[in-house]
């Protein structure tokens, strides 16, 4: 069964109150949603609390999910986005970034792999993802790659324009084109988002 079909089955079971299906849904999507929350909040502890909040909302509002509006993962991201914006508003704080995804330096990548982590398996998997991402980023024109890397570590588009000395409109164009190319590349190469 492919991912979206499996997700739909899980959602149907969650609506019926199936806790095991809810756990499975969490296992399938929590990591990537969490990474998004870490990027936005710049704080793992806050991101963990928001992840919990987002999934509680998913549990409560599972009956409102409509497949015609998008895949389950997109729906979960929408909830996480809403939760994150609400938190940012209430904290009246700016988002902060974290570490680079597109680290090209092999030695630094190895050192990062060696960082303490919840488990070597997860860290090793992260290393695999990182290598895949670097390969995909390598296929972008340098300008597009640069703005995406800066964006990934927490810069806004205005801040990227200022720091790279390019017009804001140009940065926005590079950003859109770069994200589109990157998405296409990752889809073409079967990048695993989990």
């Amino acid at each position: 069964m492919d991912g979206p079909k499996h997700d739909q089955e899980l959602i149907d079971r969650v609506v019926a109150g199936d806790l095991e299906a809810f756990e499975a849904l969490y296992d399938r999507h929590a990591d990537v949603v969490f990474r998004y929350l870490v990027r936005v909040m710049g704080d793992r502890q806050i991101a963990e609390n928001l992840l919990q909040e987002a999934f509680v909302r998913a549990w409560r509002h599972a009956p409102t999910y409509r497949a015609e509006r998008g895949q389950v993962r997109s729906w979960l991201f929408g909830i996480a986005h809403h939760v994150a914006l609400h938190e940012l508003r209430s904290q009246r704080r700016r988002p902060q970034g974290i570490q680079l995804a597109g680290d090209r330096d092999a030695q630094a990548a190895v050192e990062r792999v060696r960082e303490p982590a919840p488990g070597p398996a997860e860290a090793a998997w992260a290393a695999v993802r990182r290598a895949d991402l670097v390969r995909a980023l390598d296929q972008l024109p340098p300008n597009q790659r640069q703005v995406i890397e800066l964006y990934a570590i927490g810069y806004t588009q205005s801040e990227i324009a200022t720091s790279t000395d390019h017009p804001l409109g140009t940065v926005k164009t590079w950003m859109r084109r770069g994200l589109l190319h990157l998405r296409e590349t990752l889809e073409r190469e079967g990048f695993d988002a989990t």
Partner: protein
Amino acid sequence: MNGEATTAHEDILEMLPDYAVGALDEGASELIARHLDDCAPCRDELTALLEMIGLLTVTVPPRPEVKAALIARVAAELRTAPAATTSPAPDPTPIEVAPASPSDRVRPMRPARLPLWAGLAAALILLVGLGAWNLSLQRQLDERPSVDGFIGDTAEVHPLTDSQLSPPASGVLIVEPESDEALLIAHGLPAIPADQRLQVWLFTATGERISAGLLTANQDGHVDSRIQAPAPLENYVAVAISAEAAAGSSSPTTQLLLGGWLPADR
């Protein structure tokens, strides 16, 4: 769509990257939110962007305590309401998960060069320490001729720990660094679908993942098998196991179930 609306639409598309990470002021955010209500392409663009941000951000997964707290909370709700509901609910209050402490982290353990008897003893001590070993398995380990025949004077014992998908699995990889063979012993692995097998992966320092063969766990989730690497084990920095199609995969396609470091400072 008229010209003015098109301009607004294009402007909003360009603002989405900042909207996605909450970097816009409240007025601009509300403007975009209203536009999104009526614009399916922009909604699609936003959801794709949110996923892309998740992909681009590199961080370790949330701690298992987060899931445990979530499930406890939802189970409590389930006891009072037998099914998920759309009825208004109070704003969810997260169960506070204690901040990570150094003891929460699994730190790579340095291997030691061990004689035969010490290698066996260390393997058992490590596994007892991981809390997932049992007496019957110790007996199996003691009695296995493959172990006695394998471990030499320079054997290294590397602990393998579980991932979030496989608690409380644990194991060890016993290696002779200059050899391309190793002994993998694991216990408590989760059941996998009948059309899948366990596949062993070796990771190089540059992130390449090399298959080291397929394994089958017994009904208790126990694996005790020699693995064959394409090159001496000293060329790899980590080992892991994932569930793959029965014929094997060219690279891991599912999350890893068990993994450990093969420190290079030997």
